[in-house]
């Protein structure tokens, strides 16, 4: 190892960057585990990952920095968001403890583990470092150097990675695939069933009828101004995502009447 290149300090700019972005990363990580809703957690984690990408770039790992942004914040976090949307955005964590005192015990374990790790690093003699300048320049760049290692010394690991990715893809398809256990009912059978039950013969009413707008999460209003549960889909009803705008419509009407009265009053005054 070339010890003449060893240094003990990085540039001041990097130090400033580290302290500012490091704070952002830690705050993002804390928000990830403390936010009640999964969407907020995912967004905080995406922020932390972008900060880590900047740190990779600062450490001379240019390829990994770009891959971090593309693969982690681009692909993996979007996959997370997709699943959060599938599972239900508003599905907040239950705050009921199933094991008594588990939360505090876990926090204590985490604290102890952190102290142990940091004390371990503090005890190691890591005062000098060799920088990546020479290693990156040896083969014409960071990407070229990585490619050289990847296709020579680590070529078997690389091949096995391909097998792993294929297996994961097939596994995900198998896990989410659902075999239909019964024959799908035809339109005629569905119609006959509706007539036999006699509950709702025509199609269900559309959402937003007589309401302010016709978005799917807004219940249609009955003639007396109350929202009708029938008009919104069952999924939204179960998730409590139905927006009730019945009072808004009435308020709007009231405001309109008041305004028209004002206008009429003014007009009468003008005539006089």
């Amino acid at each position, binding site marked *: 190892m070339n010890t003449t290149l060893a240094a003990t300090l990085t540039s001041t700019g990097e130090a400033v960057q580290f302290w500012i972005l490091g704070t952002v990363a830690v705050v993002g990580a804390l928000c990830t*585990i403390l936010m009640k809703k*999964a969407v907020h957690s995912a967004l905080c984690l995406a922020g932390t990952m972008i900060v880590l990408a900047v740190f990779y770039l600062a450490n001379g790992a240019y390829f990994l920095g770009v*891959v*971090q942004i593309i693969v982690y914040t681009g692909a993996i976090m979007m996959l*997370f968001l997709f699943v959060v949307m599938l*599972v239900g955005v508003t599905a907040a964590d239950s705050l009921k403890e*199933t094991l008594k005192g588990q939360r505090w015990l876990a926090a204590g374990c985490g604290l102890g583990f952190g102290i142990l790790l940091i004390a371990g690093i503090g005890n190691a003699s*890591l005062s000098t470092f060799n920088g990546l300048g020479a290693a990156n320049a040896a083969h014409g760049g960071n990407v070229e150097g990585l490619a050289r290692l990847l296709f020579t010394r680590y070529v078997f690991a690389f091949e096995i990675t391909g097998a792993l*990715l294929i297996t994961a893809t097939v596994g995900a398809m198998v896990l989410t695939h*659902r075999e239909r256990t019964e024959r799908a009912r035809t339109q005629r059978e569905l119609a006959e069933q509706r007539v036999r039950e006699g509950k709702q013969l025509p199609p269900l009413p559309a959402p937003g009828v007589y309401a302010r707008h016709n978005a799917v999460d807004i219940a249609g209003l009955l003639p007396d101004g109350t929202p009708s549960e029938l008009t919104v889909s069952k999924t939204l009803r179960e998730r409590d995502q139905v927006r009730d705008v019945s009072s808004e419509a009435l308020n709007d009407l009231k405001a309109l009447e008041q305004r028209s009265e004002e206008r009429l009053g003014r007009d009468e005054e003008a005539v006089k």
Partner: protein
Amino acid sequence: MNPVNYLYLAALLFTIGAAGVLIRRNAIVVFMSVELMLNACNLSLVTFSRMHGNLDGQIVAFFTMVVAAAEVVVGLAIIVSLFRSRHSASVDDASLMKL
């Protein structure tokens, strides 16, 4: 500043991720905490690569990313199929072996 500070940051992030795995009940958030731990490991690998002046650390970090991608795909598929059968993403509800 010495690059060893990156190691301290990585240790801190790893600890936060581990605490998240233990504390949270929502399977998706538990998964995100695992991702955070993997990212912290990657940061320490990249830092070690810089300290030793060779690229092997970055290769290992690259493989970690690939494995993390595969893990996320399979794990999220499991969460989706669990949600289909139980209508909840809580890790407490998946306490039986049978679906």
